[in-house]
C-alpha cells in the first residue's frame, strides 16, 4: 500500500532545490538526516543535540545575515521543546526567516512515541497566534513549492508545518563535529577563523 502522505526525504529535497545562498539549520534527529540526504552543503548547520535550539539558532543567524534566506528545518518534537521561541521570534519578526516543522506526530528517534502534535496540537496555529506573517499547514507538493517561493522572497516571517508520513527511512548521517560544521559555514560566508 502506498501512503498518500508526503514523504519526508522528497519534501526536503524539493524545498532545497535551487537553494542558492540560503542558510539551513537543522533540528536533531531525522531532519538533520533529511537535509544531509538532499546534499551536504557548507551553508548547512546540523544540530545533533541541544534539543529545542534550532529555531533560536536560526533567529540569531537571520538577524546577523539579513541578505540571506534562513531556513530552519526541524521536527515536531524538537519544536515542542521550544514553545517560547515562537514568541521570541515573533517579537523580532525577521523577514528572511522560515521555520519548517516536519510533523509526523511522533518522536522518531526514541521509538515512535506519539508527540503532542500526534495528539492534535497544531504548531502552525501557535505561530499564527503569536503573529508570524505567514503560516501554513501543508500536505501536498504544491504547498511545498509555495513555501519554497515564500522562503526565497524574504518578505515575511514564515512558519509551515508539513504533515509527513511517519514511516522511518534510512539514516544519512552528517558530520557530528560541531567545530568543523561551524567553521566551514563561516569560511563559506567569507569570515576569518
Amino acid at each position: 500500500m502506498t501512503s498518500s502522505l508526503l514523504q519526508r526525504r522528497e519534501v526536503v529535497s524539493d524545498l532545497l532545490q535551487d537553494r542558492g545562498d540560503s542558510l539551513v539549520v537543522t533540528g536533531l534527529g531525522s531532519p538533520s538526516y533529511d537535509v544531509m540526504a538532499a546534499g551536504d552543503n557548507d551553508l548547512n548547520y546540523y544540530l545533533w543535540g541541544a534539543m529545542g535550539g534550532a529555531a533560536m539558532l536560526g533567529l540569531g543567524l537571520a538577524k546577523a545575515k539579513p541578505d540571506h534566506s534562513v531556513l530552519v528545518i526541524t521536527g515536531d518534537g524538537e519544536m515542542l521543546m521550544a514553545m517560547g521561541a515562537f514568541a521570541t521570534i515573533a517579537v523580532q519578526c525577521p523577514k528572511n526567516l522560515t521555520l519548517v516543522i516536519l510533523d509526523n506526530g511522533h518522536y522518531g528517534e526514541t521509538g515512535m512515541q506519539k508527540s503532542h502534535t500526534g495528539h492534535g496540537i497544531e504548531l502552525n496555529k501557535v505561530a499564527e497566534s503569536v503573529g508570524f506573517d505567514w503560516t501554513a499547514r501543508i500536505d501536498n507538493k504544491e504547498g511545498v513549492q509555495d513555501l519554497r517561493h515564500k522562503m526565497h522572497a524574504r518578505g515575511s516571517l514564515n512558519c509551515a508545518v508539513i504533515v509527513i508520513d511517519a514511516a522511518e527511512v534510512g539514516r544519512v548521517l552528517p558530520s557530528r563535529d560541531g567545530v568543523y560544521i561551524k567553521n566551514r559555514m563561516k569560511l563559506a560566508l567569507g569570515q576569518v577563523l
Partner: protein
Amino acid sequence: MSANTSIDWKSQVYDVLKEYDIKHMVYVPDAGHSTAIQKFESDDQVSSVVLTTEEEGIPYLAGAHLGGERGVLLMQSSGVGNCINMLSLQSNSRFPLLMLITMRGDWAEFNQWQNPMGQAAEAALNLMGVLTWRADEPQQVEALIRGAATMAFEGDQACAVLLGQKLIGKKDWIK
C-alpha cells in the same frame, strides 16, 4: 564618600560591551541589569532580544556568531539552571559565549526560594565547562568583563561574570 561608591559600574557594563563590538544583547530581565538593558534598547546599532527563557539565548548567540556578529546574554542566577543542556552546543561547537549573571541567593537574600539555584549557579556553570569570575565590588566589574569578553571572543570560550548581591545591593521588598 569612598572611591568605590563613585564608580558607575552599571553604565560601565554597557560601555565596555560596546568596546567589544557587541551587536546582540539577549536577555531575561533583572533589576540589576536594568541600566544596561535600557542603554542597549535605545541603541539602534544593537539588536535587543527579550527571551522567554534563558536557554534561548545560547543558540541565538551561536547563530549570530555563524553570521559573524558578537553578542551577550544577560540574566539572573536562577536562569543558569535553565541553560544546562543547551551549553552542550557551546562545548561541542566551541562557540564564543559571554554571559553576565546577576546573583540572587548569595548574600542578604530575603527570599529563600532563590537560594538553591543561586548557591549552585557558579558550580553548575563550571560543571558544563563555563569559565567564571565573581564581582562583589564596583571596581572589579569593568576589568572582569574585559577579561571575560577577551577570552570569549578571542579564544572561543564560554565565559560568565557573576555580579554578586554585595555589589548590586540587597533587594528591598516594598509593598
